[in-house]
């Protein structure tokens, strides 16, 4: 990446980091209900992958998906308003933190049943094949998803049908509260399963936005060239617990410390310095991100609650919910 590209990527990651911090603060202030699964620490996966995709490609994410929604063009205001149950939310306050979706940008949803969206991504890639386009579909998922049936069914189908789908595992070392290694038969839970399905795989540093961008670009090139699916296992780490009630005390202190020293924003910042980008330019990027998020919080706080009538809309394509005469 040249300096401009990297600075833009850094700013996007900073925007996500600050949005996640705001989500946490709003939760503690009682303004976000339910639960949240924050992606702070995993920003490079979303931003790096997005840089290798076209606007007409498809993205499917999980309940830990704020970073993918923002990387794909959802604004912090839309996201935070959704978390705060406001009418201006990304999903009109009918989805919540776990279901952020920006369909008009090809971000086709965040799914909270582990692994369920991998077959959907296969379907979107199959659709592209049927329609004769060279769009690709990307499924982002956690390490925990690699032990569920839908993961294995999707990998086989993608390989058999040679689908333009990219499976990106965000391996943050823990399936909820349990170390993934203690419940998985192989060292690399996604990548080591790929050869059994005749799918190429690579394990990468998921905290280096450039590494992610390059790996996804290679997979995209294969996919658009009709060479089928790829598995990318991006090693990363979440800064918060699994969900908002989880202090993550099961993680050894030295492990946390090691990963905090390998932070995606720090890595990008050091590289910007090496590229002779002025510290002021980085500080300005941080300030822009901070202002966007501060403004987003205020706008979301000021936004109205959803109209009660919307509870009974959009079950069906005609906008209604009628089930009987």
């Amino acid at each position, binding site marked *: 990446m040249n300096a401009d590209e990297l600075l833009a990527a850094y700013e996007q990651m900073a925007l996500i980091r600050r949005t996640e911090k705001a989500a946490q603060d709003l939760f503690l202030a009682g303004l976000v209900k339910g639960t949240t699964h924050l992606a702070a620490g995993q920003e490079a996966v979303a931003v790096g992958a997005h840089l290798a995709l076209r606007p007409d490609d498809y993205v499917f994410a999980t309940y830990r998906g704020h970073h993918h929604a923002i990387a794909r063009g959802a604004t912090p205001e839309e996201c935070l308003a959704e978390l705060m149950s406001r009418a201006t939310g990304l999903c009109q306050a009918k989805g919540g933190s776990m279901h952020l979706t920006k369909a008009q940008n090809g971000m086709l949803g965040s799914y909270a049943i582990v692994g369920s969206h991998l077959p959907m991504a*296969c379907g979107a890639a199959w659709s592209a094949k049927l329609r004769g386009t060279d769009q690709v579909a990307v499924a982002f998922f956690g390490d925990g998803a690699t032990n569920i049936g839908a993961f294995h069914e999707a990998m086989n189908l993608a390989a058999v049908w040679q689908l333009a789908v990219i499976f990106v595992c965000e391996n943050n070392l823990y399936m909820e509260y349990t170390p993934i290694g203690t419940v998985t038969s192989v060292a690399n839970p996604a990548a080591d399963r790929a050869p059994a399905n005749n799918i190429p795989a690579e394990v990468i540093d998921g905290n280096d936005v450039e590494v992610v961008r390059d790996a996804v670009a290679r997979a995209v090139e294969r996919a658009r060239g009709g060479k089928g699916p790829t598995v990318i296992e991006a090693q990363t780490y979440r800064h918060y617990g699994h969900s908002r009630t989880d202090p993550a005390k099961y993680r050894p202190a030295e492990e946390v410390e090691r990963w905090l020293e390998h932070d995606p924003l720090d890595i990008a910042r050091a590289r910007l310095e090496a590229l002779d980008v002025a510290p002021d330019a980085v500080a300005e990027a941080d300030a822009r991100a901070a202002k966007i998020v501060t403004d987003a919080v205020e706008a979301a706080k000021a936004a109205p609650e959803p109209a009660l009538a919307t509870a009974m809309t959009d079950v069906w394509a005609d906008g209604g919910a009628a089930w009987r005469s």
Partner: protein
Amino acid sequence: MAELTYRAAVAEGIAREMRRDPTVVCLGEDIGAAEGVFKTTVGLFEEFGPQRVWDTPISEQAIVGAAMGAAMTGIRPVAEIMFSDFLACCWDYLANEIPKVRYMTGGQVTVPLVIRTANGGGLGFGAQHSQAVENWAFAVPGLKVVAPSTPADVVGLMASAIRSDDPVVLFEHKALLASTGPAPPPDHVVPLGEAATVRDGGDITLVALASTVPTALAAADVLAAEDEIEAEVIDLRCLVPLDMTAVLHSVGRTSRLIIVEENPFQGGWGGTIASIVADEGFELLDAPIRRVAGENVPLPFADILEKHVLPSTERVVAAARALVGY
């Protein structure tokens, strides 16, 4: 008029839509060159080829999940789940994903797909290949639920199901596959949510669906011949949308209601119909509402045992006699 089997009507209904709309694509196990284990996709692979008719692995989650992803991106998939019992293998998609994604995204996406599946008992396939599970789908807000009883309705409802912008689960009844009926005219479309009154009568209303339509009609014949009781038989054709107008109108004329359903009494769809009639049609009734449903047991293997636990003409006749004499 030319006759058509219910089995051939399935393939005919799909083929008509595939000719009309190039975005209609089929996927499922053994549906291509093998033409389906129930021979309900005969001719499709030959006419439309492997780009429109896709054989899949035995991967129900991948089948229905891929159908969902394709439906969200410009295709109208028709996915086959071979036996409706196997819906349990991909129930996440029917319960959590397909019916909810439009709602939970604030209307950002539509999911125009059809899941077709062979449903019901009567063929002696035992507990894991014989269940009538239309009540499973009926329990999920966000799914349209269709279950035709005649070949013409198979074609007409298939057209509506495939053209629907909403997800539709279409139950094809295994015990009806060999039955025959008049072939429908070209462009035959039966709207979703319109019940059919398939026999007029003023003494009692029999509400039926799929396999229980012939059961109810046979019972009506016995009641007319032996008891001078004229039963009106309503074929619901769909559970969602549910044509309660037709049911309440009929009960208004007969004042007696029997619901004949193959799925188990426990949690069966007839309970919802009974509750609506009890609520909105209480003053129309001259007798209690009776449900003739499957027993609350797994389906047994032996023919005489299976027949014993499924709704039968005899049970409908006995229930009707009791209600008319109430």
